[in-house]
């Protein structure tokens, strides 16, 4: 049972890394996610149902997400609308596209076909089925994390981070921010769709409504992770996102299992996730206020000490 949380959390973590890229690294609040995660699920499912290898299905899911992200970036770049609105436009359009991909059905099951999660127990025969899924997913997540870590250490990756911090600087140093946004949002949504492709296989179906509220869930996971430790290194940022994703899924699991004790049903989860995000924001704000107040106190104490010292020195002289 517990392995299930981890598999769920790890699949979710790929999406959280995608959201980390858009919200935190590029500083573009991109809502395409709600659409592109379902697109990834739909594309992977239809590819597998039509008999393509699982690897190809996941690659197609990734590419569909890349295209979705690039559409958002293009709307944002060329029509000069805020990233938020561009994302909502793409997300809304994707809903219809997802239904088309799923053959005008809201739900397509992955029955009697080979998926990653029917294959993994065969590959790792020496492990129990649930553990085999966990190991397989962990390997995928580690591979993705490593690739992302390397990418954000390259010159291109660093300039993506620079653009998130200061767009003018990137322009001043001769990079086209439009191209950087295309790449950044493409990558972000590619990962989100990849996560959707894995999720569809894990739960055994693709659903057109899969994406509703995913951005907020991803944000909650990022914020939970940010409570763990503070860092500016990309490898730790992605690690933190993975931890946050697993913690979030853990919380949701216990909410589902024991929530009935305080009359919480799964229907309440979206509300609770929102409250979790608000609470995280509040705690982060109070913490930073407290730490700056502490720093202020210390500074005053230091200056007082210095004055005392000066006085004493004068007195001695």
């Amino acid at each position, binding site marked *: 049972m517990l392995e299930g949380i981890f598999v769920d959390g790890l699949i979710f973590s790929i999406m959280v890394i995608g959201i980390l890229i858009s919200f935190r690294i590029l500083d573009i609040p991109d809502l395409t996610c709600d659409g592109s995660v379902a697109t990834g699920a739909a594309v992977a499912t239809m590819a597998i149902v039509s008999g393509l290898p699982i690897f190809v299905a996941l690659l197609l899911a990734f590419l569909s997400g890349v295209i979705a992200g690039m559409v958002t970036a293009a709307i944002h770049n060329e029509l000069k609308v805020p990233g938020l609105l561009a994302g909502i436009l793409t997300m809304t359009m994707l809903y219809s596209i997802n239904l088309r991909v799923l053959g005008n059905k809201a739900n397509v099951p992955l029955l009697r076909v080979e998926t990653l999660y029917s294959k993994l127990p065969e590959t790792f025969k020496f492990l129990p089925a649930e553990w085999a899924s966990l190991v397989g997913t962990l390997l995928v997540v580690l591979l993705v994390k490593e690739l992302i870590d390397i990418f954000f250490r*390259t010159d291109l990756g*660093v300039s993506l981070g620079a653009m998130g911090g200061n767009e003018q600087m990137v322009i001043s*140093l001769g990079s086209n921010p439009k191209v950087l946004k295309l790449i950044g949002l493409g990558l972000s949504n590619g990962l989100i769709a990849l996560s959707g492709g894995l999720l569809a296989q894990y739960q055994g179906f693709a659903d057109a409504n899969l994406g509703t509220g995913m951005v907020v869930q991803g944000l909650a996971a990022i914020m939970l992770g940010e409570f763990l430790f503070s860092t500016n290194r990309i490898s730790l940022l992605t690690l933190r996102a993975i931890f946050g994703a697993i913690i979030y899924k853990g919380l949701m699991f216990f909410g589902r299992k024991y929530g009935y004790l305080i009359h919480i049903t799964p229907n309440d989860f979206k509300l609770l996730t929102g409250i979790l995000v608000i609470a995280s924001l509040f705690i982060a704000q109070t913490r930073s206020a407290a730490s700056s107040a502490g720093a202020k106190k210390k500074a005053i104490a230091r200056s007082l000490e210095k004055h005392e010292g000066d006085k004493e020195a004068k007195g001695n002289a």
Partner: protein
Amino acid sequence: MLDLTNITKVFYPGTVNEKTALDNVNLHVNKGDIVCVIGSNGSGKSTLFNLISGTYPVTNGKIIFDQIDVTSTPEYRRAMSIGRIFQDPTKGTAANMSIEDNMNTAMTKGMKGLRISLNNERRALFKELLKPIGLENRLKDNVGLLSGGQRQALTLLMTVISKPKMLLLDEHTAALDPRNAQIVMNLTERFIKEYQLTALMVTHNMQFAIDFGNRLVMMDEGNIILDLEGEQKSKLTVDELVRRFKNLRKKTFDNDEGLLTRD
């Protein structure tokens, strides 16, 4: 080096807010020139810089840079050869990244590839370059931790190592305290000499404009009203400058003296 021909910039044309910020300006800057641009607020100095660097398109006129017509070239492409430093120290650096990453981004100017070009050789070079501004032991620190003066000095260094042909300095010491302003100004002078740069600098300080560089340009109401070079400039005094302004514009400097400081 830089040729501005009949440059006009009108903001919000056709509306009640229509404003002519630059009115048929012509300016020729030779290679190696160090030009100080003075003028009160609203005289068009910043607009001039925004047009040269490509932040806004011109309403009319032609900008030739290095024998190439760049009138409609986008800002990021012009930035390959025009380095610009803003008054706001936070504009030239990325606060969320380390000093070495900032330096490296400046070093590999232009569209970046998938290479990891930050290596120990580069780090050693950065250490050497950072010595004059005293940041040589803080390569891994986030730029957000630096003071305004340090950030502006870093911006200057980054702009210089990105090897521009021309430097646009938009009151780049105005937001700093006098001591840091002096440090950054000394560095500016040093780098301009060391890398033989052509520079345009906006300042509000008349004495400084007289002392610094080989050319002085005064702007008023979107026009260049005075352009002095060489000996003419070196003989100039603040009082002479004020007198000439009065003669030229038939108006007093008084209401502007708060903005244009003598020293």
